[in-house]
């Protein structure tokens, strides 16, 4: 059996872009809160539906989208803003009250699971449980002609936007005042507030950015597969966790590398090996990496995070 290497590379590349983009928000919140925000996958789904609603209007509440009210390109900024707002709301409702009372991390983790369930149910009530999609022909998903491999404009867009957002986030965290502020809050809220940082506002900002990234990822997912359900976050949720554990919890670059790596392993374990042992392969590798490097590929030392 021979394999189509260039095509599988393309498959791995753009899937990796999606994984990374999703994992970035996880990583950002982890680095600021030191906490896994398990509602991230629900925010991801919210983003996709905000985008769908923006483009299609009230129609999506009762039936499926048959006609676009607004141009398709508007869905991505709409999804980012919408998911950002949802994410901030999650912080205010699920995390902020616990943070104020110094609740243990575990309680916040459970709270985030609750928030995820709530969001998914709200989506289900509002949009129904069935798959939603954009009208046929409204998404540029016919393969680009003249290339030796099959790749669609939407896949290229997804990859470009994913890489662009990753780069922007890296600059933001490493080079800007906001980035220093977030890293300071992550290290020690008390010290940050003594330096004049409004810690609550920092949290809100971080949650907005993480939400916007989730929204972008959700919308890309929705567009690329042209299918959105309230449960669409579930399958990527575990992938995202795997990605950040592999890359190193809370590391931005780690999330990016982890995303592309997991996608590449998945694709090539199918291409070269057997598709029925794909997940076993991914988790075996994860296990090996964690045994050799417990903090993940690019994880920070414990002393840095204390």
């Amino acid at each position, binding site marked *: 059996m021979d394999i189509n290497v260039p095509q599988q590379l393309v498959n791995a590349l753009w899937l990796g872009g999606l994984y990374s983009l999703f994992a970035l928000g996880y990583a950002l919140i982890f680095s600021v809160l030191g906490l896994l925000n398990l509602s991230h996958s629900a925010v991801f789904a919210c983003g996709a539906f905000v985008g769908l609603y923006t483009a299609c209007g009230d129609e999506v509440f009762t039936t499926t989208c048959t006609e676009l009210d607004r141009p398709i390109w508007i869905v991505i900024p709409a999804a980012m803003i919408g998911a950002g707002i949802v994410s901030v709301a999650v912080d205010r409702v699920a995390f902020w009250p616990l943070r104020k009372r110094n609740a243990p991390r575990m309680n916040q983790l459970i709270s985030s699971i609750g928030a995820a369930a709530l969001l998914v149910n709200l989506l289900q009530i509002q949009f129904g449980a069935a798959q939603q999609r954009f009208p046929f022909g409204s998404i540029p998903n016919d393969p680009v002609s003249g290339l030796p491999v099959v790749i*669609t404009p939407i896949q290229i867009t997804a990859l470009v936007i994913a890489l662009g957002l990753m780069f922007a986030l890296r600059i933001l965290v490493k080079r800007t005042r906001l980035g220093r502020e977030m890293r300071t809050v992550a290290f020690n809220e008390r010290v940050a507030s003594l330096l004049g940082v409004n810690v609550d506002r920092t949290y809100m900002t971080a949650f907005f950015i993480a939400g916007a990234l989730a929204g972008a990822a959700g919308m890309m997912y929705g567009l690329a*597969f042209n299918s959105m359900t309230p449960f669409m976050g579930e399958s990527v949720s575990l992938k995202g966790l795997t990605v950040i554990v592999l890359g190193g919890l809370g590391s931005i670059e780690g999330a990016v590398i982890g995303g592309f790596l997991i996608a590449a392993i998945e694709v090539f374990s199918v291409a070269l090996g057997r598709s029925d042992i794909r997940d076993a392969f991914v988790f075996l590798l994860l296990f090996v990496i964690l045994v050799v490097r417990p903090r993940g590929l690019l994880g920070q030392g414990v002393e840095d995070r204390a």
Partner: protein
Amino acid sequence: MKTLIRTIVVLTFALVAVVPFQVQAQDGGGMGAWDGCPVPENLPEEVTIGAVFGLSGNIAAYGEPQKRGVELAVAEINEAGYLGEGTTLIAVFEDGGSDGEASIAAMDKLIAENELAAVIGPTLSAQAFAADPIAAENGVVVLGVSNTAAGLTTMNEDEELDQFIFRNSLPEANVIPNTITKSTEILGLERVGVIYGNDDDFTLSGYDAFADALEASEVEVVRTETFARGDVDFSPQLTNIINDDPDAIVVSALIAEAVPVVLQARQLGYTGPIIGGNGFNSPALFAQGGEAAEGVIVGAAWNIGSPSELSVTFTETFTEAYGAAPDQFAAQAYTGAWLVATAIRCADSADSADVREALAAIVDYPTPLGSFSFDETRNPVHEPVVQIVQEGMFKLLTEETAAQAFGE
């Protein structure tokens, strides 16, 4: 050409509209034509049958058409005086919900409150496994009209109990071989790629049936790929399969995965036939698959495009009565009610034990599903259909439709 078809359809509808249900009342027309047994003489004024269908929640998408199918059949039976002058068939419906507990409760209630000749339902196989033994223990015959799981009619340790459990819905294991044989014959398949979900009972047993049927038809499987429930990206597997240039791609999947598999195969440039299992029998295939679904081939117990006279009549009457076309669930439920009525007629008794005997004896009974018999384990015997998606709807797979779809 198109206008001609439309005219014929409109005319037929108009005719049916003028004489609703009376078509069946006429001697020698419709389902009443079967005269394997004489008109009964000893039946009481009212004969009651029960029906347990999922009528609330998302399962109602199946339960509602089932209820309509039974209602339509009962109306026709009474109009036709099928159980003799002065005898009325009454159907009592109970909501069986979407899980086993709810259908047990519904079954208990039906049996406690009524003197039943038979029960039709429940909707899901899992519900049938839960509720059917209750009917059997009470000596009430139960006929499943949508249960496709293996072993349903032989589930009890006590074979006496099994004798009361029937179904008229073809298990997938019966549909798939027919699908493969017909497709191979019409499309001339030699080598195929297979992809299936390997973590779900339904898709696994579907895969096994496909693999056996392909081997029996001497079709070479050039590559087999798997996926897991909840996967959304199938491109790596499909890239592999398409790279091997197969004559067809065989898919065993539930609808949630079936649609993206079809979409992504088309996106990767594959234009050939895609053969699916029962999971593809869903309106979502058209709603979400759109153009990509064209050329998908699926086996089924019944198809709206079936040319048999009984099937055409049923489709027209049903559409007339409810303003929507029937689906496979409605057709099987409709047939089920007629089967039960026929057994009552032949037994000339409303006692469920007598009805059971008569039901088991039904052979070559003409129905919309085709010529129908029960085998010795009370499973259905009738010829399934093979459908192909064309212009956004299921049509029967024939040399012509195949040529239109794949241009040969």
